[in-house]
């Protein structure tokens, strides 16, 4: 009986469980006006983030050095968008998608093809007009990928999605109409003129882009949250927990899995749209596989299946490298940015070992984990 030598799997320590529940419990027990006030306060604070550098003492510690702070905030906003979208696929529906950046690329390239003056289409649409088209195309690409692959089990799905993203990247690199590394220049920015007659969305100041990005994130989060609490969300939960049982209970698994894919793809495409609108120039170098893996790491580290966790994870994977940029390390005298992936790797292992459900765990998932622990406890 060699397995008896193994220590029994530790049950959730009560300390952590209590902690996790107290913050939420406290918030949940507040009367609704107080809750609303807190939420509003947080949102106002989020919109004021670009001015964080002016806050004495704390501000300069937080803002980025080597990269413009509003730009860093905007980067965070589209990473958060991607994390929220991927969370629908991975966290809610439990399908492992290793090629999420593919949808981001589809959104970006749709905008570029429709709007840029370099494009073979010569349509030169304004950015805003391209937004719904790009989201629709991304959604469609999600359906196209999902339809043949959803029969596949978890790990096979992972490698196929990875292949899908690589196909998109290589096509972007190599197909002449997508211009590869030369890229598309002159992608128009979002519309609007300020009172002084200058465009609100210029190239020098990224603050308006952050506000736009934040607004989009809020809208998407509200939509996804509603969906999660609807019949669709409960179906996803059932599929994630036990697909066969769900099928037997009358959940149309294929339909809801396709839904998850399509919604995730649409959000990813929206992220690409935002990126293209701010960047003004895009080329194939952005859509590498490591990007997909980074976003997945953000979702899982933040707390797979939990929107707040996805937001935190998405923000961190963008913020930490940007914060490290422009800081010289004392030992090797190189930019700390060099070590970003190294630090990420360590953080990923540590978080997964000490907090397997992520920084902000999903409540449903923690219960699930406890169940698992109970199931195997006797062995």
């Amino acid at each position: 009986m060699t397995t008896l030598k193994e220590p029994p799997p530790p049950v959730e320590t009560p300390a952590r469980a209590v902690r996790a529940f107290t913050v939420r419990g406290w918030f949940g027990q507040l009367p609704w006006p107080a809750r609303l006030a807190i939420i509003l306060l947080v949102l106002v604070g989020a919109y004021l983030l670009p001015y964080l550098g002016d806050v004495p003492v704390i501000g300069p510690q937080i803002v980025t050095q080597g990269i413009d702070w509003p730009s860093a905030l905007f980067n965070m906003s589209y990473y958060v968008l991607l994390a929220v979208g991927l969370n629908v696929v991975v966290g809610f529906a439990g399908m492992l998608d290793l090629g999420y950046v593919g949808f981001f690329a589809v959104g970006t390239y749709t905008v570029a093809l429709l709007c840029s003056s370099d494009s073979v289409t010569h349509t030169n649409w304004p950015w805003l007009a391209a937004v719904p088209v790009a989201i629709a195309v991304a959604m469609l690409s999600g359906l196209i990928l999902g339809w043949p692959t959803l029969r596949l089990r978890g790990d096979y799905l992972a490698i196929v999605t990875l292949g899908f993203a690589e196909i998109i990247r290589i096509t972007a690199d190599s197909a002449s109409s997508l211009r590869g590394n030369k890229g598309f220049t002159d992608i128009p920015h979002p519309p609007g003129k300020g009172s002084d007659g200058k465009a609100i969305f210029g190239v020098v100041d990224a603050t308006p882009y952050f506000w736009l990005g934040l607004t989009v994130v809020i809208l998407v989060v509200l939509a996804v949250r509603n969906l999660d609490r609807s019949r669709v969300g409960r179906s996803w939960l059932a599929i994630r927990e036990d697909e066969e049982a769900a099928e037997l209970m009358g959940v149309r698994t294929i339909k809801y899995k396709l839904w998850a894919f399509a919604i995730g793809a649409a959000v990813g495409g929206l992220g690409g749209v935002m990126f293209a609108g701010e960047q003004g120039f895009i080329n194939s170098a952005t859509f590498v596989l490591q990007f997909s893996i980074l976003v997945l790491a953000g979702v899982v580290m933040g707390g797979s299946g939990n929107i707040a966790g996805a937001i935190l994870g998405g923000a961190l994977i963008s913020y930490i490298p940007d914060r490290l940029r422009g800081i010289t390390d004392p030992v090797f005298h190189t930019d700390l940015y060099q070590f970003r992936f190294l630090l990420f790797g360590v953080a990923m292992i540590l978080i997964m070992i000490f907090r397997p459900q992520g920084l902000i765990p999903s409540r449903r998932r923690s219960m699930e984990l406890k169940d698992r622990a109970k199931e195997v406890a006797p062995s």
Partner: protein
Amino acid sequence: MRQGLVRALGGVAILAVIAGSAACNSTSKSSSSSGGKCGYELAFFGALTGSAANLGVNIEHGAELAVDQYNDKNGANCIKLDKADSQGSEQVAPGVARNLVTKKKLLGIIGPAFSGESAAADPIFDQAGIPMITPSATNPTLSTKGWKTFHRAVANDQNQGPAVANYIKDVLKAQKVFVADDQSAYGAGLADQVKAKLGSLVVGSDKTGGDGQQTDFSSVVQKIVASGATAFFYGGYYTNAGVLRKQLTQAGWKGVQLGGDGVNDPGYAEAAGNAAAAGSIVTLPAQPAAKAAGDFVSQYKAKWNVEPGTYSDTAYDAANMFLKGIDAGNTTTSKMNTFLSTINYEGVGNTYKFTSTGELDPSQLKIWAFKVDANGVPQPDQQVPTT
């Protein structure tokens, strides 16, 4: 309990790292000395880390040498050189560029170093009115976007490509040429120019993955060997070019490999091995740094302990053009830009005059061919005509 402790310790450690690094940062910002010509900033913009960082480091070293020499004359910390590391990435470039744009005392950019990041960052510098002189971004389209502050201190690929083709036709006298590129903005553009000029001498072409995306080139190698080509031009950077050369030699191919300025780096021989690299031809759309006028070569060696690399001298000249402008009292960005439009500056690498689109005056274009010697170092071979 133990986990709580670990978590708390981890949090403290992260805070300490961030606070410590912030402290490092604030101390490095030293106060500038006073004086009408002092207190201004120039910036290097390009890759200092990443897979093609060698070129960026050459450029940064050249620019830093110029600024240091200026400060020796005008007092320590008179002019500050910001080093903006873009990793050569288009995704990173805009944020880094906006960070520079917020600096009120910034008068000029030496860079951006690569063509791709230029396309992403130059609109920002142009909008902010900050003059830039790129010592190395050679994609021809950059000067056609109407950016008023863009200047290029070297020839572009429209000149470099035909020069390579001329070398193949006139010096190598090759009858069968194979052309491949890495699909980068730079590599593909250059390869297309070479192909156009060579015409029917091209017996085959192919495309590879970009830098670091492909290591096994056996199918390209196989095609080159099968085509019977005696010369092979690769449009791309030194790493891929070197690995390709090595695998070609392994496969028994005995022809001459050629590359543009992206291959003109000791990194080429480091990847290929000296034996395989020897005899390869690489070009440079400027005069060789080793032939720079005056004491530049010895001064550079004294400061950095290495020979000046590709574009070190051009970057040195670019920085000196800005410094000359500051000396002449052009201490706003618009005055500096006007100053550059009329400049006729004799530097160590060339004499610089710019056209209205910011290109180097056609009479000043120089293209040099280098031959890699038995120690893997590209040595200046001859100047090649561009037409």
